[in-house]
């Protein structure tokens, strides 16, 4: 199937490895991603005041650009998803503001595009069973805790496609890839988000709660679908080693990195060097990382 793809700023810069892995994995399971032409920033936060529709101009412009390529717009950035999805819903439900917005951005957009998070698309349109049939190198014995953060879960009425209190879509994907998903109670807890800038110690404590809980449940790695969560969970661990004696760091994967690995793809451009906690030793220990030898044997 085809879907219009919005990379967003993060996946175009610091999350390039995430982006590469998403594109390659999608392609390998029969999902053709067509990049939104001439895209701009999604706006990065959904405005909570609705009388100032100017803040919706950026995401609305993305939706308009996406419309030229097809009806389904997907993105792998959870924040972009949250903003685009909610903007689209707002446009659909508020005709007056829609008209003003259209006048401003010189468009006639009525909310025709259907915004779907890529995980949602993989689950419902491609199907995890189908993905499982493409697996070349199952992630056997890899105990991975799936971490969803907030952006694809809340507010559930607007963006939700999974249980906001006990999401399972990422766990189900990991199981399809052959890994052992580890359930833990903080898979939907806030990671601290942008507090990492203003109050890093608060973020650190929040991340510690999440990681400690995942590890206590038996996880040796984290998989996430949110680039900001990945950054916080990964980076804060350096601090934790100084504060919590005996703390053992765990690698934090983008789910697409693990997907590409399991699908037997060329994973060299997946941004392994960008991790604060190097993920490769664990992969090597599980016979999932065999350096160049593995890459040469890749199917793509």
């Amino acid at each position, binding site marked *: 199937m085809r879907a219009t793809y919005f990379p967003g700023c993060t996946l175009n810069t610091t999350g390039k490895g995430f982006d590469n892995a998403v594109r390659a994995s999608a392609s390998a399971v029969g999902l053709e991603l067509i990049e939104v032409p001439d895209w701009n920033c999604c706006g990065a936060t959904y405005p909570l005041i609705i009388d100032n529709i100017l803040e919706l101009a950026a995401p609305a412009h993305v939706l308009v650009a996406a419309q030229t390529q097809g009806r389904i717009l997907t993105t792998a950035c959870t924040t972009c998803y949250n903003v685009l999805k909610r903007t689209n819903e707002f446009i659909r439900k508020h005709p007056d503001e829609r008209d003003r917005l259209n006048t401003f951005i010189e468009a006639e957009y009525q909310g025709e595009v259907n915004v779907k998070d890529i995980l949602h698309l993989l689950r419902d349109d491609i199907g995890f069973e189908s993905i499982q049939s493409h697996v070349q190198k199952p992630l056997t014995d890899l105990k991975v805790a799936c971490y969803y953060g907030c952006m694809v879960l809340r507010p559930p009425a607007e963006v939700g496609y999974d*249980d*906001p*209190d*006990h999401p399972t879509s990422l766990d189900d994907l990991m199981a399809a890839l052959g890994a052992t998903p580890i359930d833990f*109670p*903080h898979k939907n807890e806030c990671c601290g988000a942008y507090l990492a800038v203003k109050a890093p110690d608060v973020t650190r404590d929040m991340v510690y709660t999440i990681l400690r*809980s995942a590890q*206590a449940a038996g996880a040796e790695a984290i998989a996430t679908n949110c680039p900001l969560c990945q950054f916080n969970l990964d980076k804060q661990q350096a601090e934790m080693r100084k504060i919590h004696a005996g703390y053992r760091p765990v690698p934090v994967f983008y789910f697409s990195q693990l997907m590409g690995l399991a699908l037997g793809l060329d994973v060299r451009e997946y941004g392994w060097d960008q991790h604060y906690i190097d993920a490769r030793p664990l992969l090597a220990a599980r016979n999932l990382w065999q350096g160049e030898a593995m890459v040469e044997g890749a199917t793509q």
Partner: protein
Amino acid sequence: MSSGENGYSRRVLIVGGGIAGMQAALDIAGSGYEVVLVDKLPSVGGHMHQLSETFPTLDCAQCIMTPRTVDVGRHENIKLHVYSEVEEISGQMGNFRVRIRRKPAYVNWDACTACGACTEKCPQLVPFDFDRHLEMAKEMRTGGVRHVGTGKAIYTLSPQAVPKKPVIDVDHCLWFQKGKCRLCEKVCPVGAIDYEQQEAWFEEEVGAIILATGFELYPLEKLGEYGGGRVPDVIDALAMERLLSASGPTAGVMRRPSDGKEPREVVWIQCAGSRDPELAMPYCSKVCCMYSAKQAMLYKHKVHDGQAIVFYIDIRSAGKRYEEFIQRAMEEDQVLYIRGKPSKVFREGDKVMVWGADTLTGQPVEVAADLVVISPAMIASPGTQRLAEMLGLEVDAYGWWAEHESNMAPLETSRPGVFLAGAGTGPKDIPEAVSQGSGAAGKVLSLLARWKGPDED
């Protein structure tokens, strides 16, 4: 005197054999009129049957209720249809025709002497509706504390059940599921077990109807932030009643489901699904403040050095001697009250973590509890909607019966001859439900008194 000269039946149908329905039945039957009482369970008593003690007197619920259930069971003017559902109602005031379906018990109750041999010998222990599916740890079950006859694939609801005749739970019965066992048949001294029994249909003619259909609890599965029913030591308040009750799965010994250990720290969470217009029910469930104080007290009476903590939004103790009862829980039994609604409950090791805030001090609170008791919203009984369609009656936005006028005609419906009583119209405590039962009986009696019997002028 069952039929009036004007052709009106002076018999009365009561749907629901809880405390409100029983009260109405006894008042009407005691006045000399015939009552047809229908209940979906094998025994009458409703939710009160499950309770340990009652507030604000700490009376044993079963003890004060047993005279009612026994009277209902043996009253010459009360025709009981238990383990039955009303399937069809036609006609109008004075001449309702009612079709009642009796579910197969797979036991011939006419032959059964209630000796208890079948329930005692049944090898299948099952999670039991009546005990809120409390699956006690194995050591508790084999420790001999569970009352014989309950929580088996052939069961009666409790030792005090009226009628005390057993039914087979086909979903768990070895014979029905695996085609072997038939032990109950072997041990029954009167040959009452009948695996071929079919459902039975009954027709009744009545002149008036009282709907006393009661309530259920909002399911824990819908309270994702409190574990969504996945944490064994997070239980709902009715389950706690069963744990506290002498007729419950632990015979009233304080134990928790996961490992059968005595819980040293117990947290109660109020307003779970109540007063929550965004996600669940906007209304106050009214009885939780009182019963949680009662449960915390009873817990402290069983575990003297245990810690009882109640998280609340605010305490609603409007009722005679209710506020004094709350004060007693705080002062005499040292129940700790924290004003704040917890945000999250989850399992960590063998503890249940409760994340909340004390909104009086503004501080976050984390409690490592052994057992968490949720007070879920009271919701209308699941059959209410179907009955409403049958009768052409309205329910409100949340499924409760719509009173004809909530102020001046709270016991009447929009249909002549059809009345309401008990918690089917919204959350009520026992005294209120009993009052409504008597009130609805009074309404019906004032009709019946005007309808002439065959031997009257």
